[in-house]
């Protein structure tokens, strides 16, 4: 896998089998990117970043939901405090990701992209290959935030620690003690 960023057309969302992506995008466009209660219902699937133009090269992460791709697949436990991306993600990954943030905040439009990165985190080599939607959100009083919804991961599916534990237990239950009839 090589580091790669591909910008996708907004119509791509219509073709994907992901109801959250479709509903989220249509809801935000309908609400003219103003924060709404409907937007709040997507909280656990979103990462929220500071949309200030000054920090767009590596915007601070204000919130990470429990059901984000980062949590469920890439095993990132979002800290309970504001995350400075340089403490979590590799410089390669941040460089790739920054293009989308800039474009999203400059155009104040939805950005859809496909990101591939060989080594995304500082903690260790974590290849990622996924799509994401970046949505501008404003409070209507001059402050802007970026909502990120990631989906469609095709990362090589390594077993998570919790799965390994279950597999190990199953293996023990099925352990063959009969030497005359091996598996």
């Amino acid at each position, binding site marked *: 896998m090589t580091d790669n960023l591909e910008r996708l057309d907004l119509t791509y969302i219509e073709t994907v089998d992901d109801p959250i992506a479709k509903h989220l995008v249509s809801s935000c466009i309908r609400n003219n990117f103003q*924060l*709404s*209660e409907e*937007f*709040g*219902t997507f*909280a*656990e699937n*979103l990462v*929220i970043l*500071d*949309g*200030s133009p*000054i920090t767009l090269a590596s915007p*601070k992460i*204000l*919130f990470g*939901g*429990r059901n984000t791709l980062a949590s469920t697949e890439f095993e990132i436990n979002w800290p*309970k*405090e*504001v995350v400075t991306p340089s403490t979590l993600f590799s410089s390669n990954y941040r460089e790739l990701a920054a293009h989308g943030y800039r474009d999203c905040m400059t155009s104040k439009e939805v950005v859809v992209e496909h990101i591939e990165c060989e080594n995304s985190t500082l903690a260790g080599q974590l290849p990622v290959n996924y799509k994401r939607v970046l949505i501008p959100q404003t*409070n*209507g*009083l*001059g*402050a*802007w*935030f970026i909502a990120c919804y990631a989906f469609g991961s095709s990362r090589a599916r390594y077993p998570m620690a919790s799965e390994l534990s279950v597999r190990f237990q199953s293996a023990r239950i099925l352990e063959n003690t009969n030497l005359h009839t091996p598996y």
Partner: protein
Amino acid sequence: MRDDEDRERILAIAEEIYSDVPAECPPEIQLAELLENCAEYNLSVFVSYFVCDGLFGHSQPSVLTGDDAALFMKRADFFLQTAIKQRESFS
């Protein structure tokens, strides 16, 4: 005797008034003020649905007390400060 008690009481009040250390505001009042500020900045969605629901599984931060209220305030304040900074940088 009564005069001494009154004097001590008055001195204690005066000391509190003129002390450099601000009196600790009860968490319930701090929480109410924070929620009011968040509402003023149109950030109620973030603090209710994202912060409160994410931490406690419900979207009613006004019912929080004690340590829960303190944790909520710390996280909700990130959104408020971000909005305030952005507004200041544009004005």
